[in-house]
């Protein structure tokens, strides 16, 4: 069966160009500036993973809450969830490529009395096996969820909806535990002496924000003239997605601040190290930028009702949020891995070899972003085209098509 192609060849060529261009630059960079390129790949792989997992979580949440409003465009988050095998394997490859970046083999030497559990938990083999288990569980459960939903297109069996509700509940429980642990293992462990008990929920907040922004962008692209969701994905669906994005942007800020305030208030050196390296000195403007993009812009712009019902406004806000998500992850990853005092000279500025103590946006970041956008775009389009664009026999489809947002 040939899949329908929803976008012009120009779009495809553009995405291919981004993918190949970014990939080639990063491949050269892997030899010349391995630390910096690896950090960017980690960021990109984790970003892609949050898009995929976020889609799966969106689908699962709507099943367990008995929601019907989203069914008309449910194939969009499902297409995102179907990225899990690719995103998961990319993540595992990045992790396996440079386990030495995690400083744990030496970190415990000065604090043996408090480090014993971390030493045990972060044993490289155990750590890698866990990563494989997390990814395998996500692929298995989310894959089954989506496959069953597509099976309903043929059979129209309402029992599939009931079964998927139970499967979603299981997936959400597994997800909550494994994603918290994964964010700790893969990102927090970059600074093995630092810890935050809010790290899991902080990453969840960012993930759901990413997922909603991607759903909004894809939904809007797919509802243009001649696209499969034209006349299906309407302003009432958009309105509710806008409310969710507004709400979860506030949630992200709430969690960000809660994590910050507890650490600021307690003022214990092993906890404050993370925020001192970020909020004091040259990284502070990036923290402000992250808050502006992830919370202030969506909060102010999406507060009025007409904004949430306007495709043009929602598209722009969703893009701003996606840029904000990259900045937030950049702040999680880069300062943990910085090694030298700064970059000097024009050549070092464009082709820096290491992660400097000053926030820096050079060719490797551009290349990794190109690669991320190209790969995500190509995979998402292919994944969406591989199934019927509307779950035609879902029992809630009619309700969703006639949905009115209050």
């Amino acid at each position, binding site marked *: 069966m040939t899949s329908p192609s929803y976008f012009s060849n120009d779009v495809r060529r553009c995405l291919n160009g981004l993918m190949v261009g970014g990939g080639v630059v990063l491949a050269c960079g892997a030899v010349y500036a391995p630390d910096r390129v690896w950090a960017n790949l980690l960021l990109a792989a984790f970003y892609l993973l949050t898009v995929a997992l976020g889609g799966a979580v969106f689908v699962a949440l709507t099943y367990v809450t008995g929601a019907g409003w989203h069914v008309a465009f449910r194939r969009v988050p499902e297409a995102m969830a179907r990225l899990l095998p690719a995103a998961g394997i990319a993540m595992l490859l990045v992790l396996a490529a440079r386990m030495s970046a995690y400083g744990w083999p030496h970190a415990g030497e000065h604090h043996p009395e408090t480090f014993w559990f971390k030493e045990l938990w972060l044993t490289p083999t155990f750590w890698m096996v866990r990563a494989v288990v997390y990814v395998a569980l996500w692929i298995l459960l989310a894959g089954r969820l989506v496959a069953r939903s597509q099976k309903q297109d043929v059979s129209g069996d309402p029992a599939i909806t009931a079964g998927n509700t139970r499967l979603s509940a299981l997936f959400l429980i597994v997800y909550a535990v494994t994603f918290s642990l994964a964010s700790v293992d893969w990102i927090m462990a970059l600074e093995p002496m630092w810890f935050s008990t809010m790290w899991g929920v902080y990453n969840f907040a960012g993930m759901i924000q990413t997922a909603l922004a991607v759903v909004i962008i894809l939904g809007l692209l797919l509802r243009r003239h001649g696209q499969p969701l034209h006349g299906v994905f309407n302003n009432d669906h958009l309105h509710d997605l806008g409310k969710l994005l507004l709400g979860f942007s506030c949630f992200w800020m709430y969690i960000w*601040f809660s994590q*910050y*305030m507890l650490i*600021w*208030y307690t*003022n214990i050196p092993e906890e404050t190290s993370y925020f001192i390296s970020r909020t004091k000195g040259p990284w502070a403007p990036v923290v402000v930028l992250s808050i502006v993009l992830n919370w202030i812009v969506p909060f102010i712009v999406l*507060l*009025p*009702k007409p904004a949430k019902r306007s495709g043009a406004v929602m598209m722009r806000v969703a893009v701003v949020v996606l840029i904000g998500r990259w900045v937030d992850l950049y702040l999680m990853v880069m300062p943990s891995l910085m090694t030298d005092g700064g970059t000097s000279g024009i050549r070092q500025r464009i082709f820096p070899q290491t992660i400097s103590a000053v926030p820096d946006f050079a060719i490797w970041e551009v290349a990794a972003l190109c690669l991320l956008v190209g790969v995500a775009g190509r995979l998402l389009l292919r994944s969406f085209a591989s199934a019927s664009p509307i779950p035609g026999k879902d029992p809630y489809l009619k309700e969703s098509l006639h949905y*009115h947002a*209050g």
Partner: protein
Amino acid sequence: MSDRVLVASFEHEDDLLAATRAVRGRGLHIVDAFTPYAVHGLDKAMGLRSSRLTWVCFICGMIGAGGMLWFENWIAAVAWPIDVGGKPWNSLPSDVPVAFEAAVLLAGFGSVFALFIVSRLFPGRAARIVDLRATDDRFVLVIDQADAAFDVAAVEELLQEFDVVETRELAPSKGGVLG
């Protein structure tokens, strides 16, 4: 609004919605609609403008946050400074949680009380119910008999198209049906 209205009852929400659109299409003024539960799309059919309560909510929230930030700063830095863990007296992060709670509290109470005031709901206010069955299984539309040109028979005929089950004229005493 004149003091004479036409009260029409329907058995299905779809009939009420269609009748509301048709009545408005005739240029007649709808006083209000009463339904046992919230009917989606009725606000649009009635041509209600969007609620201004959101502005009350927003402004109350801002007053709550701003007022509490000022108050906390005044307590901690001016009226009774206490050294907490060596932090500056006017430490903003410690003020944020209470300011946030005050914003939510004022926004919530502000919206609810603004709604009560605007719709004149007070304890002990006598309920004015046009049709008791609107609290159970009927959908009721109240149409204003704006002037002498209001042709009751013609409107009733129009409503027949939407399976109206009952129409009656009402001349409420002072204040109208909605008081």
